[in-house]
């Protein structure tokens, strides 16, 4: 029994330390240590360590940008994209150290350098934001207990709306009253037209659910028993639609951050080359 437990502990330790993440982390640490140590030695010898850190930073940024190219080359039989992702995250975080060892200040002087610094910071912030989204959004989506493909959301909402309208018409025909129909046209229709309460959904609020409950309760005492049954059906569909809105909100965010991160990074790269050109012409 004791030996079995020891085996499990050994296996767990092995899983923790002997995996690809640790390999990437360790190799990055070694690489950065060597670069920074060399830069430090150059500084000690009154050399220009900015050249070493600057070119290292350039290569790291190129490597980071290449990740997007690799992702588009889906059939490229070179290293799984998940490994690239891990490397991208590790290198992305460590390049902040390299950046400060190169710039040696929070905000450099000169319009070009300031623009470059701002783009670098924005790129890092959007990257970290994306990492945060990637780590939190999937779990939140799973917990909604429905699964829906983003591109299908408009058609699913349209289907839900059709179902609700059929129920409304059936209710009006059967009961010869227009109470529910009127409520739908005046109020509920707004909810079923397109995704609603997106910001609230993103921050984990329950505004959508609350709104649906409110709007269905407010009409209850005008309805007879038969109409109430139809209202229950509509309420169920509304809650389902509320979950779709939740998916729409979160899935939009998990895609949208890339529309910030990638253009900012590309702009930064352009300025990096401009910076490289200027430095090589005037400074070195």
């Amino acid at each position, binding site marked *: 029994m004791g030996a079995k437990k020891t085996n499990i502990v050994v296996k767990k330790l092995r899983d923790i330390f002997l995996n690809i993440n640790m390999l990437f982390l360790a190799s990055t640490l070694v690489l950065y240590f060597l670069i920074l140590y060399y830069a430090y030695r150059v500084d000690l010898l009154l050399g220009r360590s900015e050249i070493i850190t600057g070119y290292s930073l350039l290569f790291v940024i190129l490597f980071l940008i290449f990740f997007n190219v690799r*992702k588009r*080359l*889906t*059939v*490229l*039989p070179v290293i*799984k*994209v*998940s490994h*690239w*992702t891990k490397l991208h995250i590790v290198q992305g975080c460590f390049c902040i150290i390299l950046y400060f060892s190169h710039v040696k200040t929070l905000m450099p002087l000169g319009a070009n350098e300031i623009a470059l610094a701002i783009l670098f910071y924005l790129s890092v912030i959007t990257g970290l934001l994306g990492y945060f*989204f*990637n780590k939190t*959004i*999937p*779990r939140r*989506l*799973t917990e909604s207990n429905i*699964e829906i*493909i*983003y591109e299908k959301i408009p058609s699913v909402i349209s289907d839900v709306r059709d179902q609700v309208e059929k129920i409304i018409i059936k209710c009006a025909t059967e009961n010869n009253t227009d109470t529910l129909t009127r409520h739908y046209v005046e109020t509920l229709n707004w909810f079923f037209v397109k995704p609603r309460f997106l910001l609230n959904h993103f921050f984990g609020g329950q505004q959508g659910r609350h709104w649906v409950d409110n709007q269905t309760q407010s009409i209850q005492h005008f309805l007879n028993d038969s109409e109430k049954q139809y209202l229950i059906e509509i309420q169920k569909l509304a809650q389902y639609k509320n979950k779709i809105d939740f998916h729409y909100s979160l*899935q939009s965010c*998990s*895609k949208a951050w890339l529309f910030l991160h990638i253009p900012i990074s590309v702009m930064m790269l352009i300025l990096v080359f401009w910076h490289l050109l200027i430095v090589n012409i005037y400074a070195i």
Partner: protein
Amino acid sequence: MFNTSVTMDRPQRWDSPFDHNMTDAQVELLLQRPEFNLIDKSRFPSSISLEGILKNDCRINRYKPGDIIVRDGDYGNSAFLLLKGKVTVVTRPGLPLEILGRTRKKKKSFWQQISQIWKNSPYPEARNISRYFDKTQIMNGLNTNSSILNTKYSNLIFNELPKNIDSIESVPKLKEVYETVTLGSGAIFGEIAALSRVSRTATIFAQTESQVLEIRWQGLREIRKYDDRWKKIIDDNFRNNLLKDTLLENKLFKGFDEKIIEKISKYSLFETYGTFEWHHSFNKSNDNETSEKDRIVQEGHYTDGVILIAGGFGRVSKKIGNGERTLTYLRVGDYFGLDELYTTWKTGHEIPLETSLTTLGYLHTIRVPAHILEQYIFPDLKIKSSRLSDIAERSLAEDTLLEWAVGHRYINGTQTMLINLDKCVRCDDCVRACSDAHNGNPRFIREGYVHGAQMVANSCMHCIDPVCMIGCPTGAIHRNHDDGAVVINDDTCIGCSTCANSCPYKNIKMVQIRDDNGRVLLSSNNNQPIMKATKCDLCQDQMGGPACVRACPHDALERVDFHNYVHWES
């Protein structure tokens, strides 16, 4: 007062005969043959008469010289009785894949793989259709019996092909490298594959003009049950060809002398439970519950032998509250009832079964009698018997994944696409990668049943029991010998939809074919679009394995053997 019910005749076993065109005269002629003439008809119950079996569970097929009757590697539910003519069995080596309507995809080079990015067609399901036209006979569905004579690869197996293959009376001799056996009238073949759901082990083609009685497994099972002669033929064939190997491979008998295994095989009984066509009822009802008729042995009863699983799946369950709790499921190589028998032998007190065994679809078993085990096995039993009932100590919540996997029959999958939704950012890079690897056409949908955070996506699972392969008229859908993947040869698929309709998981899609310019390909017979079956092929022609797995940025997608996965999770 409304009438709230409608009436119909109670469905009967032979409501759907194997062949509607089978006539009483044909049955009469069959009954005069020695194979059926000697059968004691009185032993058959009146509801399952021999005449009924011949009329409803059999059909007569006619083959021209060279027509393939059975393909090596195919799965099928029928046995065959040669009525007239001669057939040839190619024992070894097997015929080339191309002759059997199959293909082995070559891996693309690095450059070819990269160039897919810009070479992929902008049109859905576009193909180079020129390769179809030398097989117009197959494309138009005029002849679904493939022949070894009229393929463009026939010269691979013959020294010299006759010029006019339509008028030949007997197939010329194959090249010397092929070992063959010729069977004459009265020969029975294909019965082992039909009853035990193993793949066919040889290709058989018509040597001369032949008439063959095809008997579907239900009929064969009844004839074997009520006629000792047929039973002996089938059982002897099974014992000689399959049983000894099955026993030798079973972990229970590991390390035992081959002579002992031979003795065990002599006394063992093989039985089939459930229905091979489980996918039909599963498709209709998606019924996860086990009915009484599926039960093989019940908890609390006594057993007279150990049940070895030789095919299919069995559910081991224990009664809990008002339902049955699935403790585990058994598949080929597993056994049931050992603990109780061993304890009985050891203590001298008869122990009843602590769990029940039911079929999940069908179950092919070998029953090794208790007295044989006591005599030869128990005294030297080396394996530590694991009590299935002990699994019941686990909490009910721990086994929800197992219940779910068994209920949905995901246990059948060897390469199931499992997506961890807690990691998946829904970016669809997997779908894009699949599409890029298949000329712009994704071969799966990122949708499916979800359990907890695990989704089984609608992608071919490359099943242990590939029901999709049963009934393919051209052998286009087949199992790849190298890695066990179930793949479709686009060139020989005739678009009959048999595989797509059979797949219980709806993972095969029928698609309209277009040429390179995006024009829909129509049949010259009726102007209907030419359809082909498509599914995940595990990226057979791509370096590095399935593109979906390689493209996932968060390691959320994996291909798993559900057996390992469920047990690891448990």
